[in-house]
């Protein structure tokens, strides 16, 4: 999922100078899942803004703010609702993709209330770790299903660096060197020897943004 983090309340308020009527849009996918921009946080933000005298005219959190039909569908359009209610500004707690999609489709300013962090995995309902950097050139079939491109700060594909001391990453002492995990896993799978092969150079064309995926229309 896309993991986001709520910005400090003061920072959000600082971008709202000169506005009174505010519409807040969260997102139940990434932002809601990581409890940093779903309906609950949107409602909390609304209360705090009201406390400062803002007029919050609507709070919505669709299941996917980055999906155009969910924010601007034929039967139900949150964007039209925001317009009808006379919103002067929209505060989005959706990820960068959702927030931009809103901005593309409304005439009023859109302020983001979150920072988009990473594509991560969740555990215990509260721990989120970056597992993928969407490099476009996935190699995890060769590394025991563990990605060194995303989970080693240097994205090393041929093995650990010389800074991997006692299993720790040199860059972030809080995390293990991912190559220890890869080694362990590959041993378990009986595939350790396959790591002997020199890894091909990464093709960074595949991560040149902005990227797109267009599905063929079904005939």
């Amino acid at each position: 999922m896309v993991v986001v983090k709520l910005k400090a309340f003061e920072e959000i308020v600082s971008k709202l100078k000169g506005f009174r009527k505010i519409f807040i849009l969260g997102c139940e996918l990434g932002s809601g899942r990581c409890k940093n921009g779903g309906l609950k946080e949107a409602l909390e933000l609304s209360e705090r803004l009201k406390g400062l005298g803002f007029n919050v005219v609507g709070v919505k959190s669709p299941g996917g703010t980055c999906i155009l039909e969910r924010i601007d569908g034929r039967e139900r359009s949150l964007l039209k609702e925001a317009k009808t209610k006379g919103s002067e500004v929209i505060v989005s707690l959706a990820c960068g993709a959702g927030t931009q999609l809103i901005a593309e489709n409304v005439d009023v300013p859109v302020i983001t209330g979150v920072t988009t962090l990473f594509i991560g995995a969740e555990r215990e309902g509260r721990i989120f770790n970056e597992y993928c950097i969407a490099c476009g050139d996935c190699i995890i079939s060769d590394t025991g299903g563990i990605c060194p491109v995303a989970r080693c700060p240097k994205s090393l594909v041929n093995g650990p660096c010389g800074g991997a001391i006692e299993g720790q990453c040199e860059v972030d002492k809080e995390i293990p060197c991912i190559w220890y995990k890869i080694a362990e896993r590959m041993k378990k799978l009986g595939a350790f020897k396959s790591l002997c092969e020199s890894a091909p150079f990464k093709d960074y064309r595949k991560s040149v943004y902005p990227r797109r995926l267009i599905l063929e229309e079904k005939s």
Partner: protein
Amino acid sequence: MTFGEKLKAGKFLITAEVAPPRGTEWKDVVRGIEPLKGKVDAFNVTDCQRSMVRMSPLAMSKLLLDSGFDPILQLTCRDRNRIALQADLLGAAALGIRNICLMTGDFTTLGDQKDAKPVFDLDSVQLIETATRLTEGYLLNGKELKGAPRFCIGAVFNPFAGPFELQVMKLEKKIKAGALFVQTQPIYDARIAEEVNDLVCELGAVPIIGLLPIKSLKMANFMKKLNPTSVPDSLIEGLERSENPAKYGWDYTIDLAHAIAEFGKGIHFMLVGKTEELASFIDYLKNHKKYNHKF
């Protein structure tokens, strides 16, 4: 004989490290290593070591070359993509720099400009493959070069990093990719030095064992923090007991250097503070009947 010629001839190698200045004043750096001219075979010129900006190692290598020293240009993957790395390697060769030592490099956030964008387009194995490709007359994309460089390629190895099997596997890849010599992180134990020496020889390259004289207990503890298993307790205890820890640390290193001169292929001094002392030690080694046949 140049460093590369000695390497090929199987002579005992002595290298040392030079950090380019933070600024344009390079003459003091050269003056500082003057006593080692003709004694140390080649000087590793570090590439913004510990991710702190210094003069370009390519420029400093050329300045050393012009001053009568044989440089080993260190290049890391931290700040340059494959385009810039190939360009710098070609430039180095054109300037007469023959020795290169290629490594991944410290991460940006460990330095003093933590907000810099880390590159790491290639890793150390791939950078060595790249340099080898250039010596074969081609760019990475297969285009033919007008004039191919000649390089004596080196790599680095930290025997205290893990997982050990993967570190050895990576070392093997580096040597397979074209590394002719391997310089190690500082070692403080003759037994480990010998094991590493044998390992690198077995894999088909020339080992040059890293030595970094300990100047104080504080420095020993710092080294222990970086590489906990690298500093033996006996060294720490010796430093604690000694009235002159700097002398103790130096003598300890020299003892180790003696041992390596017996079984090994080369030593790499990573501190050029005591140049006069180092110069006389090298003279002693080269003239001693026990070792002189190796030089």
